């Protein structure tokens, strides 16, 4: 989807901030992801046009960062760590449970990630980049349900304030 008129103004402002327009690829990608929920192909093409590079170059840059989602994701992105400490403390069990529980829930996307640097209270997960630690399959489910019910407030999928900013 193309940038909305307000976001287009903001996008032009972002481009103007940099001496080399190419530097605006990442903030513009954040803006597009916050607007559309994920980084669409149309958005990457539009970004390329705005800063005078090829779409391949935008894709090449954005595909490095796992925080840019190139496929549609739910409102809540849950990142479960399965690196060494979490592996020992039950991370994979949490992951497996959540994957099964939310397999058909379009609002929630579960992903496996590398170390979140929360080994002290493993296993850990993030919900839209908000940390939750010392989990069990049960407590992890409760936390997600709390977000779904609105008891906890989620950030945007890029980790920024929900619905705005460029992360």
């Amino acid at each position, binding site marked *: 989807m193309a940038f909305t008129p307000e976001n287009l103004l903001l996008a032009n402002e972002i481009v103007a901030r940099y001496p080399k327009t190419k530097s605006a690829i990442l903030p513009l990608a954040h803006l597009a992801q916050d607007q559309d929920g994920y980084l669409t192909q149309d958005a990457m093409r539009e970004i390329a046009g705005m800063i005078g*590079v*090829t779409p*391949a170059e935008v894709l*090449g840059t954005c595909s*490095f960062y796992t925080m840019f989602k190139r496929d549609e994701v739910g409102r809540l992105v849950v990142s479960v760590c399965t690196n060494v400490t979490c592996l020992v403390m039950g991370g994979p069990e949490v992951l497996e449970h959540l994957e099964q529980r939310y397999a058909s829930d379009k609002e929630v996307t579960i992903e496996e990630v590398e170390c979140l640097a929360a080994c002290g209270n493993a296993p850990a997960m993030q919900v839209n980049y908000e940390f939750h630690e010392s989990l069990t399959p049960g407590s992890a489910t409760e936390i997600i349900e709390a977000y779904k019910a609105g008891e906890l407030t989620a950030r945007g999928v890029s980790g920024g304030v929900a619905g705005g900013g460029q992360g």
Partner: protein
Amino acid sequence: MKDEREIVTVTIDGIEMQAPKGELLIRVAQDNGTFVPRFCWHERMKPVGMCRMCLVEVEGVRGMPPACTTTVTDGMVVNTKSETVKKAQDGVLEFLLINHPLDCPVCDRGGECPLQDQTLAFGPGESRYVEEKRHFEKPIPISELVLLDRERCIQCSRCTRFADEIAGDRLIDFGERGGEMQVITYPDDPFTSYFSGNTVQVCPVGALTAKPYRFRARPWDLSAVETSCQTCSVGCRGSLESSSNELVRLLGVDVEPVNHGWLCDKGRFGYEATHAEDRARNPMIRRDGSLVECSWPEALDAAAEGIKRSLDLHGPASIAMVGGSRGTNEDAYLWARLAKGVIGTDNVDAQIGDGLPAEVVLGLPGATIPDLDEAAAIILLGPDLKEELPVLYLRVRRACVDLGVPILDVSAVDHGLSKYASATIRHLPGEQASAAREISAALAPLIDGRSGPIVVVLGRSDVATSAEPTVAAAAIIREIPNTRFLVALRRGNVRGAIDLGLAPGFLPGRVTLDAGAERFVAAWGSAPAEVGLDTAGIFNAASEGRIGALILVGADIVNDFPDRRLVRAGVGGAGFVICINATVTEAAADADVFLPATVWGEKAGTTTNLEGRISRVGRKIAAVGNPMPDFRIASELALRLGTDFDLETVEEIQDEIARVAPAFAEVDAQLLKRARDGVVLPLALHRDELVLEPRRIPVIDFSWEPIKPEGPGEFEVVEFEVVEPVLEADASDEAAAEEESALPVDISNGAGLPDAQLFVWSAQHAAQPTPGRDNYALRLSAGRSLYDNGRTVASTPALRALIPAQTLRVNPSEISRVGVADGESVRVSTARGSLVLSLTGDANVPAGVAVMPFNIGETGVGDLVDVSLVVTDLRLETLR
């Protein structure tokens, strides 16, 4: 370019070497005979230090720097063969091979693969890696021409850097950086660069393969010959390779003054046209209204008879010759001698109404391609180089982007180089002269103290506008001090054909009929006195019944000439038509005699590029069937008209040219054989550019540490060499050069012939006004697109699919003015005719202009242009 850097002394592996300060260590080592292994470093691209294969030890430097990113300093002591270096090389190769599939037996690169070669020479021989390798779907097409095998890729970034740095088409890039790093294109946005084939050539593994060559041959089954591409007039040097008498590929060879090793895809893959199904294999004559195959003597007798009849009845001026810009110089010379020396007509034109008058081509002070690099500024007033002369586009782009030469763009519409221009003068098609008057003022701020010549790339930007406005502009620009011209004509050897007299008013060697009369009467026995007709004049005369015999040499005249109605009337009106071609074209189908000719790859000789540089063309395969080279056909016709040329070989023709054609003085067979990068005419002005030695890469030490596998058996010492493809001609050149290097260039040529003055364009050109455009009309700009219905593309399976769809591009405001939707069909009418075409809006097209490439689609520009008019104005009507 002169190297003015300070010279320093470096010691590499104990041997002292002199090198310019700041030069890359890997290059200094290589130039002095020490090969440092590498994958990512390429001589024509910026170093990146990605593959780590060229790690060396430098005394006093901690760690091991890569030789490709290290510059030499005075007193530097380098070790490229120590135990430590060897260990590093083993390690790097072991890592590179972790994910490499080792499918060499089925890989196209196997046998000439840098990874294979360097693993053998520098690698550990064994891997400790036992885990599963990375897997990808293989191979995936990244364009119509190139396929990508991501498993084989070692991520050297040569292809992505080529696309970005050299071609300026960054349609491929690395994606998924990390463990899954791979070359990507954007979805639905394939790698449609005109230069994509170069990425296949520079790939150091078999990750990128070209569709036409895949699985066609193994490198050790190929034989190669050195040649020059004749697809366009840049004349890129290449190595033409065949297997079982079939051309299978053309590789670019790095020649400093011309192509730097690059080729465009049309040139690279166009060899397939040689094997087209519709090649004519036998001569034909018209019997009972249709062409039937016959023997050569029969056909030649019939052709000579037709010429003789016209000659006897109406005199030499009733005979005309059109074409001849696709052959070799030797072909062109004998066609010129046949027409002008034997028949006695000057109605001869190699250009097909889409170039510039020969006075302008021959008479302007010439520039060379390397002049672009040292220019104070480059003025572009001519065709879209990216579409018509792609490798010249690369050189102009490099001069601008890498060397900072400013570009002044004088054009009617945006083209491939517009975005690099420092200043732009826009004009309506046909208003080149008034635009040229603004050049001086626009140039001053660009030059801003820069020294060097001003190089003007001058040509016809489109075929819907006559040559007149460009000629007028040239007359104005020539008055700007220090300008030199690269005349951008398109066809392969058009410059050679003009240089050798296939133009009205000129004799071989850049002399006018008057200036050369005495000389050529002495050499040939006779020469025409009256200036003849150009191609348009010939077709006009023929359509009025004034041409008794028309000789068409090559060219698909009906599709190549801008005015289709005139050419059809001309061919139809000529008394007797002789057609020499590789296929039976539309005009050939109406011929009285058809003579099949051999084409590029099937005959040896020389070709002249747009600089006036003569370089060798190689013969790689024998023609199938009975086609003959043009020069033999011309000789046979001359014999039947009573003149025995007595020239049996290409070398004999070259020697005769050197003897009789003034601009070719000294340029005989021996010099042409020795001149590595070709000979720029006239030799007197370019003598110091001659390189008579073959390129040699010195080798200090061939005995690399051999691989010692564990277990029984010993490998022999492997002699390892990574160089450009070895060319057959080089080997013989080397021997010849050694024999002859002591001899001075023979300057006894032409002795005994009268002097002749080389032509200089001196006529004061009175610019004729271009008619104005009324507000309801659009002015047509019909340039060329690289892929069109021309024979090379249409007969090449790999390229045919790339011909763009026909559409008329106009400013979006025009679409709304006509009141149709984008993409809708409209009726397009000119003074000449009308067509139904789809209309596309394009904000880059200025209002008042309509853009459509020439020779696309069944009907097109050729049906709209009247060559007697200066410009082509058109009107649009809705069909509703």
